[in-house]
């Protein structure tokens, strides 16, 4: 168990090539679970390999328990990794696979047997110990791969997309088991995924990465509620956040976003801290599907034509067109209208986000300026 810190870590694979990792700064406390999420090819595996020592970094420093480890060889770093492909040794039995790391470290045989038993019990693979990896199902191989990492009791676990080769049902099961295991063992963990549900459910902290740059590093809730930019906002959340490009209009002392469904118009009130900077500026309004719901009787509402209805079970997704953009709304299943019908929608203006249309950066919200009593219906923004 140990804290992990990355300071300005850079990685370039070869001279003349672009940097694969650019100035990565991350820091997690002992026992925390860090999720590294991003699209394929953004450098997640590269970062893991750098932490493990399988690749040398080109700049910066990696610290474990405040001690620099960049100069150490992989075996001295006391870090264990679970690979996406599992990388089980094909000619060894499950027992030998789990014991290999301990044997290499010259642990006495009695201790090795003890550890193997412990890990096998934890992962419920006791009955598989004598088998070869080729005689195991995908889920079982995955467990053995985790067992190999657990056996050594290292300072840090690295998981590189450990569940992406499993089918959907098993993936959900293993996700819960990994969370349970982490709660029990409390070992510092870095977990790579491109699955935003895993990112939201497993981590204490989430780092969203794109093109070798950390876009945002925060708690899952912060990432979800206050994404730093359009990329983070679109990557996290399913179905994804709706983005409606528009120009804000001034209405007396405040700003409004005008939404037009074709059959109705609605002025979504926003309160902006620095009024002048939004004059004539193009912004993108971000609203998550669950923030658009069926309107209460008598409240302010926007009527819109229902284009597509997708019942998912726990709720129903309804697609309408606002400002000529397809917008997804998440309704309660019993409120589900039919396609072609007209539906009254209400918005949760508190949670609405504004992004700069040119840079994609979020215009920061300034909740402390919300006047008491008005917060129910006014979202406030400051241009950053």
């Amino acid at each position, binding site marked *: 168990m140990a804290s992990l810190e990355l300071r300005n870590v850079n990685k370039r694979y070869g001279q003349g090539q672009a940097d694969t990792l650019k100035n990565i700064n991350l820091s997690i406390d002992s026992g925390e679970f860090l999720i590294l999420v991003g699209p394929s090819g953004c450098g997640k595996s590269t970062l893991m*390999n750098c932490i*493990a020592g*399988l690749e040398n970094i080109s700049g910066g420093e990696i610290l474990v328990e405040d001690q620099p480890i960049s100069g150490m060889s*992989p*075996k001295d770093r006391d*870090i*264990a*990794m679970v*690979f*996406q*492909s*599992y*990388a*089980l*040794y*094909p*000619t*060894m039995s499950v027992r030998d696979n789990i014991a*290999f*790391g301990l044997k*290499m*470290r010259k642990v006495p045989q009695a201790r090795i047997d003890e550890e193997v038993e412990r890990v096998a019990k934890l992962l419920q693979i006791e009955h598989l110990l004598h088998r070869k*990896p*080729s005689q195991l199902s995908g889920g079982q191989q995955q467990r053995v791969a985790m067992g*190999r990492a657990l056996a*050594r009791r290292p300072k840090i676990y690295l998981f590189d997309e450990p569940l992406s080769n499993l089918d959907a049902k098993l993936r959900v099961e293993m996700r819960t088991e990994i969370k349970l295991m982490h709660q029990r063992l409390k070992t510092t963990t870095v977990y790579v995924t491109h699955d935003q549900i895993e990112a939201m459910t497993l981590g204490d902290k989430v780092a969203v990465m794109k093109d070798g740059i950390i876009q945002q590093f925060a708690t899952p809730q912060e990432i979800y509620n206050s994404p730093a930019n359009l990329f983070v906002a679109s990557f996290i959340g399913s179905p994804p956040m709706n983005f409606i490009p528009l120009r804000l209009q001034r209405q007396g002392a405040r700003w409004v976003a005008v939404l037009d469904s074709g059959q109705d118009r609605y002025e979504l009130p926003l309160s902006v801290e620095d009024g002048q900077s939004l004059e004539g500026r193009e912004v993108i309004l971000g609203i998550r599907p669950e923030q658009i719901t069926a309107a209460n009787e008598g409240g302010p509402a926007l009527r819109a034509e229902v284009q597509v209805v997708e019942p998912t079970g726990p709720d129903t997704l309804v697609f309408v067109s606002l400002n000529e953009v397809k917008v997804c709304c998440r309704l309660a299943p019993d409120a589900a209208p039919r396609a072609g019908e007209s539906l009254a929608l209400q918005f949760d203006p508190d949670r609405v986000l504004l992004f700069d249309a040119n840079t994609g950066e979020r215009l920061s919200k300034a909740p402390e300026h919300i006047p008491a009593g008005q917060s129910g219906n006014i979202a406030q923004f400051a241009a950053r």
Partner: protein
Amino acid sequence: MSNAALQPRLSAGRIAIYATLLLACAVYLIPLIVMLLTSFKTPDDIRTGNLLTLPESFTVIGWVKAWAAVNGYFWNSVKIVVPAVLISTLLGALNGYVLSMWRFRGSQLFFGLLLFGCFLPFQVILLPASFTLGKLGLANTTTGLVLVHVVYGLAFTTLFFRNFYVSVPEALVRAARLDGAGFFTIFGRILLPMSVPIIMVCLIWQFTQIWNDFLFGVVFASGDTQPVTVALNNLVNTSTGAKQYNVDMAAAMIAGLPTLVVYVLAGKYFLRGLTSGAVKG
């Protein structure tokens, strides 16, 4: 699906196919049959009868004489082949391991040059090799001949192993490094055990090449250190006395037998090793 599809009838087309196959078999087998029949005949029998008749009186005198003549050289060949095959296979495996898992700057170029070695004709290296052996003081020794075979075979064995190992997932080596295994431990404990098919390919290939080699044997060995192929040639080409075809044929069979045995014992691995890719991780 009907049974007819599974049990083909004997149509005209099939008969033609079988006839062609039988003919092909005959083309390959008749020389062998002639050799075998001749080796068990007496010289008189050979002179009077025709090639394909059975021996009038069956005798093993040809084999006895042949064994007496090539016996020593046969063991020479064994002494050359065994170390040469083992060393070139082991070094090839090591080379292939480095070239696929521990790439270094210029390793692609290195591999390209090594590949070039596969296309070098034997004759080209005769002079440089004999010069080198002379400088090393290994001229006309078994060790020298082994060295030449190892060096020449390295291009092939490296190619075999490198192509096998590039299809092994690199994550296996990474996992082992994190587990604390070093360069040779990873090679010996993880990669070699999964290389059985390609080791077999290499052994058969190298055994056949080196056992059947004549040119290196005749150039780099002399007198008592010559391999069996050279001895066979000397035996057959002696101009003194009457031609003893039965002895010649028996000696040729003796010289060819070991490669046959190796094919029979390890042949199934040969095909498997050539056709299968890597072991799945």
